[in-house]
């Protein structure tokens, strides 16, 4: 199986797996316990916190461990909106956001909050000037750092600058960006940043919300004093330790891996264009993640392509994995103004630390083959 679905989930790195295995065997105490075993567990927890903070140039005490990107986005957006409720009951999210952010906004909407949307350009990013026309009662803006489907990098710093002028807080879902491009939260200016371990070689079930400079936040998961009172629940120590190792490796390899993946991406894009001359690659005129290609093959439906590729030992996604099962066009491509008949023919290829040149070369003829099969399936139906 050639796995080109790293944006859905990355294989756990062997070093991470070893760290988790040893933690499961050896560090079994509750990090909140006061005895020596508890304190040993606590030390491992805090070391992981340092490693995660370093990946995004944050302070360790700004890192709140959560169970993943979805929980992190909920905690950030809902927690900030609740904390800022006295100032207004409106949040703004971009039309490009992940389901997790849309879901959090729906929770707020049910609770009587108003939701505004930031539009996307045809190139797949949000224009920071959109911030200026948001209604007065807006308290939080949610804009992802890199889109999970197209890889387009969003102008979060520009949005944060304009938001700060209006006293609006900024949440950024950096789940797809972390480990793929350098992140410096100081320069970015986001108040709440969310990252997830399983997108950067770590385990599932763990992520982090980074709350900058004491930005207001109400706790969504109530409990005792865990995570400085910001997130109740006994810590998932093996997961967190694994996350720490993954973050350290990602930070170490960031530059070299970014260069390597970009070369592979360009090789793939050139191959796709050679194999199907009418292929449309989305977001090419915007800065993109080095690992993501979102391409439409006119006349070849994504679900047919997906099955044909699966049969040929290639794992990719149609739009986002979380939206699988549906043949509807991706809301992200729709928000970019991509026509429906083109959008339903889109595949996402996402490369990662296991991807090799050989895999890219092997995959191109298989894609060409799958496109032919999918087009004839469409022809048979018509």
């Amino acid at each position: 199986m050639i796995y080109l679905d790293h944006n859905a989930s990355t294989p756990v790195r062997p070093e991470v797996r070893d760290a988790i295995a040893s933690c499961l065997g050896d560090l079994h105490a509750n990090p909140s316990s006061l005895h020596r075993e508890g304190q040993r567990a606590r030390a491992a927890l805090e070391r992981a916190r340092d490693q995660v903070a370093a990946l995004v140039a944050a302070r360790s005490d700004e890192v709140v461990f959560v169970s993943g990107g979805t929980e992190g986005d909920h905690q950030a957006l809902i927690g900030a909106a609740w904390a800022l409720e006295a100032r207004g009951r409106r949040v703004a999210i971009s039309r490009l956001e992940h389901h997790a952010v849309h879901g959090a906004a729906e929770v707020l909407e049910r609770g009587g909050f108003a939701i505004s949307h930031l539009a996307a350009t045809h190139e797949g990013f949000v224009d920071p000037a959109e911030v200026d026309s948001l209604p007065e009662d807006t308290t939080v803006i949610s804009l992802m750092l890199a889109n999970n489907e197209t890889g387009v990098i969003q102008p979060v710093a520009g949005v944060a600058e304009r938001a700060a002028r209006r006293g609006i807080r900024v949440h950024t879902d950096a789940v797809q960006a972390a480990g793929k491009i350098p992140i410096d939260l100081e320069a970015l200016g986001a108040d709440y940043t969310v990252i997830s371990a399983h997108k950067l070689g770590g385990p599932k079930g763990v992520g982090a919300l980074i709350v900058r400079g004491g930005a207001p936040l109400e706790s969504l998961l109530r409990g005792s004093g865990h995570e400085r009172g910001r997130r109740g629940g006994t810590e998932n120590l093996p997961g967190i330790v694994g996350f720490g190792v993954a973050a350290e490796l990602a930070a170490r390899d960031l530059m070299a891996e970014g260069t390597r993946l970009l070369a592979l991406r360009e090789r793939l894009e050139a191959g796709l264009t050679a194999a199907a001359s009418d292929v449309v690659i989305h977001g090419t005129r915007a800065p993109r993640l080095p690992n993501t290609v979102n391409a439409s093959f006119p006349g070849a439906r994504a679900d047919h392509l997906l099955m044909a590729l699966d049969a040929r030992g290639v794992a990719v996604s149609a739009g986002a994995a979380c939206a699988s099962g549906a043949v509807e066009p991706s809301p992200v491509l729709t928000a970019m103004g991509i026509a429906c008949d083109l959008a339903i023919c889109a595949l996402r290829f996402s490369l990662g630390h296991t991807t090799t040149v050989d895999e890219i070369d092997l995959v191109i003829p298989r894609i060409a083959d799958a496109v032919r099969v999918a087009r004839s399936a469409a022809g048979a139906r018509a």
Partner: protein
Amino acid sequence: MREIYADHAATTRPAPEVRDAMLPFLGPRFGNSSSVHRRGEAARDALEAARARVAALVGAAPEGIVFTASGSEANNLAIQGVLACADASRRRLVISSIEHPSVIETARHLETRGIPVTVVPVESNGVLDPGRLAEALAADVALVSVMWVNNEIGTLQPIAEIARLARAVGARFHCDAIQAAGKLPIDVETADLDLLSIAGHKFHGPPGAAALVVRRRTRLAPLIHGGHQERSRRAGTENLAAAVGLGVAAERAQRRLAAGEPQRACALGDALLGLLLARIPTARLNGDRAIRLGSIVNLRLPGVDGEAALHELDLEGITVSTGSACSAASPGPSHVLLALGLTPEDAHGSVRFSLGEDILESDVDTLVEGTFRAVERLRALDHGGTVERR
């Protein structure tokens, strides 16, 4: 020197078979279980097998299991989720005074958002009197949340009676069974529970793996929304390795329960209690000697600081706790012990022993002698006027 871990109520060591079952899912068998490709299918099968195992431990239907990342999340989901669906005429929440902080703090939070909350006090033995609960129940109650076994003092609550009373007024009943699962037989159908929380790391599963059991026809709004995972009741990519580990731990716990293993730890706890009371005549049990999970022994040691005792015992290779691990970060005295009517000073002077699989019969004497020596040392120190209150 043999290290004695007597803090099983805080957390337990993941069993080797749990670890072994998890590791393949951190290796080549990765895959986003919501993806359609083949790896995704294998992942989904493993997830559903784990779900069935967890369901079997508590007599539930597999589709009633919602995997969560912690017991606290399960408690939050149960309470916030039911109240979010409540009708305007029925939105009161009733809890006991000795619930876990994840229940009490959630109740307080909901109260600030306009939900009426009634906290029913327990009796001085740490057990809820059903008569007192009945007085708090009326047709405006949406949810009753009472724990099965208290995490600090081990007292058992009259679950069947509470379920009956809740049912009589048309309220839902959530039971935090985090300390009970794997130690007592649980059957949500027989007990007539609508919602039940369990956490894997309390019965030798992995941390980060827990579940809320939701019985049919219980309306529940998700806390984490925006994905179809867990039948849209808990969004987010599934933590497959942890779920698999939880499944193995659940099956293992069920087997050990049938074999009488937790009962052995309860008998050792009762023996420990008897010997400690005899060796340290001033010591008193917090809670109720009979209506208690025997493996949890919470002792008040007059004239001794609980935390100082914990550190003394730690030096002897004995791991215990004051109150609960969860409240260790908060400096105040245990809300559970205060609810029993203890003074803050007595509450600070208490130590919890929680026994389990790792305890041997021969450890009981070591625990007794170690505690006796620690208390003697601390009292001698106190006599010199230098007692520490950390």
